[in-house]
């Protein structure tokens, strides 16, 4: 067996960091990539995946350990190895002012591919990626998914000995993700390319031959997807939920019983959970709260094992006070409409970003906005928060017309931006004080509320820390604390779970569940389809239009029977695009 990549006890320490302290990105990583196989490096954001792949390309050198790529020591023969590599960085550097064909030709020239060989190769790649009709289009004018595919095509202008893909599907809609994987799979089959791919999506890891789980710079597990999956064999269950109780509440009840439960997520209208090895269903007290619902054993999947492995490496944080939840409380959504959107329109020149969208959000509801990149969800979101004026339609938040009284409406809302808009050079306390002041709270009130939110988000003891130097998960919590400081009736969350690890995501949703139970209205955007299951109602947008609106159950059923949210999403979007294509002839 040939090792295409051989990493032995590789460590990487960054000395020049923003915080001034050395940071260990990778620690004692040993890994092999075998000839003709797809090896996956899975792990949450900031696990060290990008750093590792950059080292394989010779763009960074390891601090310790031996790293051999294609049989050569990469630190000594970087250029020779680079000649034989194909590398697609997370953000592939397409020249946006060049057309698809010109981008391809540039890379072909750089790799010294003779003209006569190009036609055939290019044709194959263009057909594979579905870019054949767009060869003359400027790369900057392509959609996100198409850009990724063009990036892949550019790295494949010649058949490399090793293909390195750094999160090729991040920020790409589910359809394009599926297509990208089909391309990768068929290439490996036809050209016997060895591939190392990093991803944060478990479904994608299932498609690989070999999987390494990376977390906080360390390899936690290694095996075939099946081997890893089987670690949680016989531990996975699914249970329906009693009429009227949201799945997320039942899921919270299970998740809170840490001593018996590894993981729980809402799925297909019920709750999927994984029990600790050695436990039985009878041990689980939470189940006795719902005597009418019977849990059934289901096949395990990679994500179950992944969560198990992560839990072993790092303890989930205890929930702090302020998030107590009545596990048997019925869903209570008042008839009071908090957000009313009717025929909302937003145009940028000729481009219609949001096309006559209508929906209502009731008090105490969790409402999810989902859609592929560029679908219009961020634009819709910005209009709802009063950050962007609407071009047309009605829009009111907490009874205030946003089109005429934006400032007034803002006092009722809390907003957590995608990149957690904090002041990096201020301390935790200073940030909170600033946001309190910005919302016009009195000093006394700020002081009171600050103590509450610090406790709620477990930030006590970190008050004097500089916000910019907090770990990712803490930044997210501080952003939440700042957003909730003035006790808003409505909370807007823009992609709050991207960039934080799965355990922190569970904690986050647990907090949201408790907030919703207390009557806060929550609007959230996410690109994790499975997170739609936490919502009371959801909307899917595509190309500015609403293509599905309803409870997660209703939306799933529109896609087909017994689908996951991701599958349903693909089915609905594809179906809709087909219909549109027919209408347009």
């Amino acid at each position, binding site marked *: 067996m040939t090792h295409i990549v051989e990493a032995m006890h590789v460590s990487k320490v*960054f000395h020049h960091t923003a915080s001034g302290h050395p940071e260990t990105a990778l620690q004692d990583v040993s890994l092999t990539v075998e000839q003709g196989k797809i090896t996956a490096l899975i792990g949450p954001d900031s696990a060290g995946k990008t750093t590792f792949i*950059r080292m394989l*390309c*010779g*763009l*960074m*050198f390891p601090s310790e350990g031996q790293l051999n790529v294609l049989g050569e020591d990469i630190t000594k023969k*970087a*250029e020779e190895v*680079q*000649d034989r*590599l*194909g*590398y*697609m*960085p*997370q*953000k*592939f*550097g*397409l*020249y*946006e*002012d*060049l057309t698809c064909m*010109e981008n391809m*030709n*540039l*890379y072909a*020239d*750089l*790799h*010294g591919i003779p003209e006569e060989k190009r036609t055939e190769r290019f044709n194959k790649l263009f057909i594979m990626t579905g870019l054949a009709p767009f060869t003359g289009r*400027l790369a900057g004018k392509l959609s996100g998914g198409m850009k990724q595919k063009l*990036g892949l095509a*550019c*790295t494949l202008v010649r058949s490399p000995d090793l293909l390195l893909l750094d999160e090729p599907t991040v920020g790409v809609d589910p359809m394009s993700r599926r297509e990208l994987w089909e391309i990768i799979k068929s290439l490996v089959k036809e050209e016997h390319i060895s591939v190392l791919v990093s991803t944060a999506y478990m479904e994608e890891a299932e498609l690989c031959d070999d999987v390494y789980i990376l977390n906080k710079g360390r390899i936690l597990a290694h095996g075939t997807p099946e081997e890893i999956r089987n670690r949680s064999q016989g531990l996975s269950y699914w249970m329906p939920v009693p009429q009227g109780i949201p799945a997320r509440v039942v899921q919270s009840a299970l998740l809170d019983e840490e001593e018996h439960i590894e993981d729980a997520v809402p799925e297909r209208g019920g709750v999927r959970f994984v029990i600790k090895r050695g436990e039985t269903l009878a041990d689980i007290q939470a189940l006795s709260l719902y005597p009418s619902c019977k849990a059934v054993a289901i096949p395990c999947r990679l994500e179950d094992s992944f969560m198990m492995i992560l839990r072993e490496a790092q303890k989930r944080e205890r929930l702090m006070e302020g998030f107590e939840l009545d596990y048997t409380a019925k869903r209570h959504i008042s008839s009071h409409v908090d957000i009313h959107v009717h025929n909302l329109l937003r145009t940028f020149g000729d481009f219609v970003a949001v096309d006559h969208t209508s929906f209502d959000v009731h008090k105490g509801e969790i409402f999810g906005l989902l859609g592929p990149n560029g679908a219009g969800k961020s634009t819709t979101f910005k209009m709802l928060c009063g950050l962007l004026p609407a071009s047309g339609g009605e829009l009111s938040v907490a009874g205030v017309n946003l089109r005429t009284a934006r400032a007034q409406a803002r006092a009722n809302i809390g907003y957590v931006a995608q990149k957690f808009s904090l002041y990096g050079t201020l301390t935790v306390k200073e940030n909170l004080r600033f946001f309190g002041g910005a919302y016009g709270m009195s000093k006394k009130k700020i002081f009171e509320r600050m103590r509450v939110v610090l406790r709620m988000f477990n930030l006590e003891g970190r008050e004097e820390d500089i916000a910019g130097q907090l770990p990712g998960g803490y930044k997210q919590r501080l952003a939440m604390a700042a957003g909730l400081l003035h006790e808003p009736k409505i909370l807007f969350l823009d992609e709050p779970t991207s960039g934080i690890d799965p355990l922190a995501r569970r904690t986050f949703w647990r907090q949201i569940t408790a907030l919703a139970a207390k009557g806060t209205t929550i609007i959230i955007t996410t690109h994790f389809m499975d997170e739609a299951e936490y919502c009371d109602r959801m909307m899917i947008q595509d190309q500015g239009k609403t293509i599905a609106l309803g409870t997660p159950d209703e939306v799933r059923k529109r896609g087909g029977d017994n689908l996951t949210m991701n599958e349903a999403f693909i089915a609905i979007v594809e179906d809709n695009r087909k219909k549109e294509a027919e209408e347009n002839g």
Partner: protein
Amino acid sequence: MDDFLRRLTALIKKEYKQIVRDQSSFIIGVVIPIMMILLVGYGMSLDVKDVPVAVVMQDPSPTVQDMFSFMDGSSYFNPRYVTTYHEGVSLMDDRKVDDRKVDALVVVPPDFTESLRKGGGHVQIILWGVDPTTAKTAQGYMEAGLAAWQQAHMREYMTSYGTRLGMISVSARQWYNDANTSTWFFVPGLIVLIMTMVGVFLTTMVMAREWERGTLESLFVTPVKPLEIVLSKWIPYFFVSMGGFALCMIAARYLFYVPIRGSVLIIILASMIYLLTTLGLGLTISSLLKDQFIACQIALLVSLLPTVMLSGFIFDLKSTPEFINAVGHIMPATYYMELLKTLFLVGNNWGMIVKNCTILIVYGLFFFGLSVVVTKKRLE
């Protein structure tokens, strides 16, 4: 070598397409030089028209009235006549700057006609020197006007009075600014400024853009060499900058009629050498900083501002404190400035040409080399 040329051509082709399709480099390379040269060139007001002048007729004799008749109906002057010095001064009081009535005073002393007959009239011209270019030009016109009158009346005088007409002597003083600056002086300096700005900014922008958009990360993992990347930036933007230079030269010659007393060829050559420095400096800054915004800020600080302040563009380095003079002489722009001013206004001074060109070549090679060295195919 074949591979080198093939890759370099591919990269230059790419760069060319980007220049054509993205207006930003066109704006920096061509539009900004045009704007700068027009704004600064015309802002320095080459033409002096309708200068308000107060003639203080302390001696209101017909001779004196005739002497100043050249101002009446002239498009260059807008005269008004007063009889006391005090009255004249109050018209040009700087404290009433907003409502200053005249830009120049011509003082004719009470005994002027008398003295003139005796063979030596004296007229004093007082100029509002805050705008030295206008003041100097106005002074020239007045002197010329008086000289013409004298020329015309010389013979007539001889016959009427039987004596030779006395020479009118003019003593001029500029108020509020005793230094004087010549317009021609500015245009060569402006070319230095434009070449510095265009050269540094173009490359700073395009290289940092590649870092920011992640295109370099993808390029690095191809057989491309750092030298090829640097050259592929350097060559196309060299031509864009030379385009800007050509525009400056045309404007200097045909718009502002700046004399070019030295060799045009040497001017072009020196400019090409100077571009080696500025383009190299821009590439170095952006390779080190990898961020368009910060790189442009730094480029502004290290190139444009010191060139304006310290290269002798505005302040003659010879008259600055020694320390500033030394700092000025660290900058390549100073040598290029000296070279251009001499070549435009004085002529070929071969000793200086050889010396300054050599210094510029050394700087150029240094900065070009530095840009190659700092462009590593590494991300840390």
